[in-house]
């Protein structure tokens, strides 16, 4: 992206001044290098988002932003339902409530290094990953509806985890306001065999080592200790969320066309929050959120069983579970007034600052854990929400390193089997059903996650807490 098209606010914050149909400015967070590396499509998509009815304050792009669908990935926008604000299926994405959860194990990395191949094999066997994978669950219609209403609470009530897990999940494991009756039979049918599966693409279960700590007080509060083993799980609402996205994108686009709404991008189809379609989508989307929360809870249970079978002294405790493809109804300060807004985060993480009432009491003093997934060569970073992000980005931060190149380019540049061997030499064990999938997810295909985390901190969105380096990666 050409910086001359932007107005500099600070070294890590740039503005697109309103023009044409833009209702508000657009703000891009990032270092000059990261912003220069962004696709021009980010500019275009952010401008389109800033043109939507009822948008409040600004449209935002996080430091990891890249070309998405209607919204840029790494896009944040809040809408006021009392001022014709809208909701957009494209602004949430196809993988509704995709997110990351982090678990501590209580194990030193040296304790697992002797059995890391066995651990990798056992995880690969018991964590259903990749195209065509299945778990043992096959839920009937009543059970599916219960999952869509109760989320991770359903999973815990059915033996997948512990009650104390729920405190460390956004919404305490259950998104209220879900309406399973708004979810199509097709979406439910797609999900039936897919509960408790990881998926494919950039989804993973990774065993990592706490490699470096940047903020020891906060790391300690999160339960992160240097050289200890942690587990990251990245996945979403699987077929159900994908189908809800497909169904409502079409429904909104058709309604917009019939009503002659001025659409700048078909993928940016929207509906007024206070409309029948808007309300239906919100009910369905919240159902998908519950599906994702339950799915990550079930996968946690599978991971616990594997760890306990090999390391009986391990105890996998949840640090936090946070979604990064959502639209949530939240209170925010707007011009000195508290307003209830619908905040879209497409490939962006909520990053509540210290003392926010929605944080679990045990974490409240420290800010919300934020997880930035990097790549299977570098691992992830843990950050903590800052109070300053409320003013800057409706308490949002970034969610990943962001791709540096397309899957097509990566597939031509790397060979999966060779890459797997090279990573093994670097101490990272990969298990995946697909060599091509590994090539498409090559570490070199991603931006530098440290640069993204640094920019996030410098922009005042969240502060760095720890770096988790990869040991074992189960890729779908």
């Amino acid at each position, binding site marked *: 992206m050409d910086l001359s098209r932007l107005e500099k606010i600070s070294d890590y914050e740039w503005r697109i001044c309103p023009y044409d149909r833009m209702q508000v400015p657009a703000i891009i967070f990032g270092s000059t290098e990261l912003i220069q590396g962004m696709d021009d499509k980010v500019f275009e998509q952010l401008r389109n988002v800033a043109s939507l009815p009822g948008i409040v304050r600004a449209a935002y792009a996080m430091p990891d932003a890249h070309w998405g*669908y209607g919204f840029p990935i790494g896009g944040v926008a809040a809408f006021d339902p009392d001022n014709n604000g809208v909701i957009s299926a494209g602004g949430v994405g196809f*993988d509704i409530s995709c997110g990351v959860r982090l678990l501590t194990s209580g194990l030193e990395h040296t304790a697992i290094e002797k059995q890391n191949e066995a651990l990798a094999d056992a995880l690969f066997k018991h964590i259903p990953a990749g*195209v065509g994978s299945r778990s043992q669950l096959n839920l009937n219609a009543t059970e599916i509806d219960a999952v869509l209403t109760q989320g991770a609470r359903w999973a815990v009530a059915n033996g997948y985890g512990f009650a104390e897990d729920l405190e460390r999940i956004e919404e305490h494991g259950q998104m209220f306001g879900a309406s399973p009756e708004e979810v199509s039979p097709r979406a439910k049918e797609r999900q039936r065999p897919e509960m408790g599966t990881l998926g494919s*693409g950039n989804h993973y279960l990774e065993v990592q080592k706490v490699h470096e700590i940047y903020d020891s007080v906060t790391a300690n509060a999160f339960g992160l200790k240097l050289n200890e083993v942690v587990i990251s799980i990245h996945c979403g609402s699987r077929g159900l969320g994908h189908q809800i996205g497909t169904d409502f994108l079409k429904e909104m686009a058709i309604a917009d*066309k019939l009503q002659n709404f001025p659409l700048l991008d078909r993928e940016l189809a929207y509906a007024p929050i206070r409309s029948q379609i808007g309300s239906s989508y919100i009910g369905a989307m919240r159902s998908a959120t519950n599906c994702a929360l339950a799915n990550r809870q079930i996968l946690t249970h599978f991971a616990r069983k594997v760890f306990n079978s090999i390391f009986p002294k391990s105890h996998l405790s949840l640090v936090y579970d946070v979604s990064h493809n959502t639209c949530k109804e939240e209170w925010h300060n707007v011009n000195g007034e508290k307003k209830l807004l619908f905040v879209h985060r497409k490939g962006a993480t909520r990053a509540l600052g210290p003392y926010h009432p929605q944080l679990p009491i045990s974490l409240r003093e420290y800010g919300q854990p934020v997880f930035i997934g990097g790549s299977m060569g570098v691992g992830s970073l843990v950050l903590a929400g800052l109070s300053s992000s409320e003013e800057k980005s409706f308490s949002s931060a970034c969610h990943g390193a962001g791709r540096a190149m397309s*899957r097509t380019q990566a597939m031509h540049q790397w060979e999966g089997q060779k890459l797997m061997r090279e990573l093994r030499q670097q101490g990272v064990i990969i298990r995946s059903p697909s060599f091509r999938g590994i090539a498409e997810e090559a570490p070199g295909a991603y931006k530098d996650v440290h640069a993204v985390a640094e920019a996030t901190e410098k922009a005042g969105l969240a502060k760095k807490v720890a770096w988790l380096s990869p040991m074992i990666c189960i890729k779908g």
Partner: protein
Amino acid sequence: MSTDLSALERKNQLYNKRWEHFPHGSDVGVRGIGHSLQEAFEMAAIAMTSVVVADPTSIADEKVVKINCSAIDIYFLLYEFLNSIIYEMDTKQMLFSKFIIRTMNETSLQANLYGEGVDIKKHQPAVDLKGATMTDLQVKQVGDFWIAQCIVDV
């Protein structure tokens, strides 16, 4: 490779290759090219299959699944067609290698999908398809050829 359709006007390329992928920041574009609208749709479906499986010819056409799609216009029809294939892949755990559109007009089509159950060792599937999107969704006549394309989210 450009996403600009004008780049496709090179007839040699069109004659030699009837489907292709084009890049998207995080996902993949699928483009079908045909002498008719029907053929362009069928080729777009093969392009989509090859996002999942590098060699679609490894998929036997031993089972048939019939689908009916309807939409308000030809663009939504392509969206509906590709997403119906994804739905059948997901729920039946199948991969398809041959697509025959039996009847088609601007707002509806009936098609047969030929394929087999997913065999991870044989097919080496790389990614699940989340959905065909409306990003870069185009159905267009270029010279003697029809183009049908969109980005698929994986």
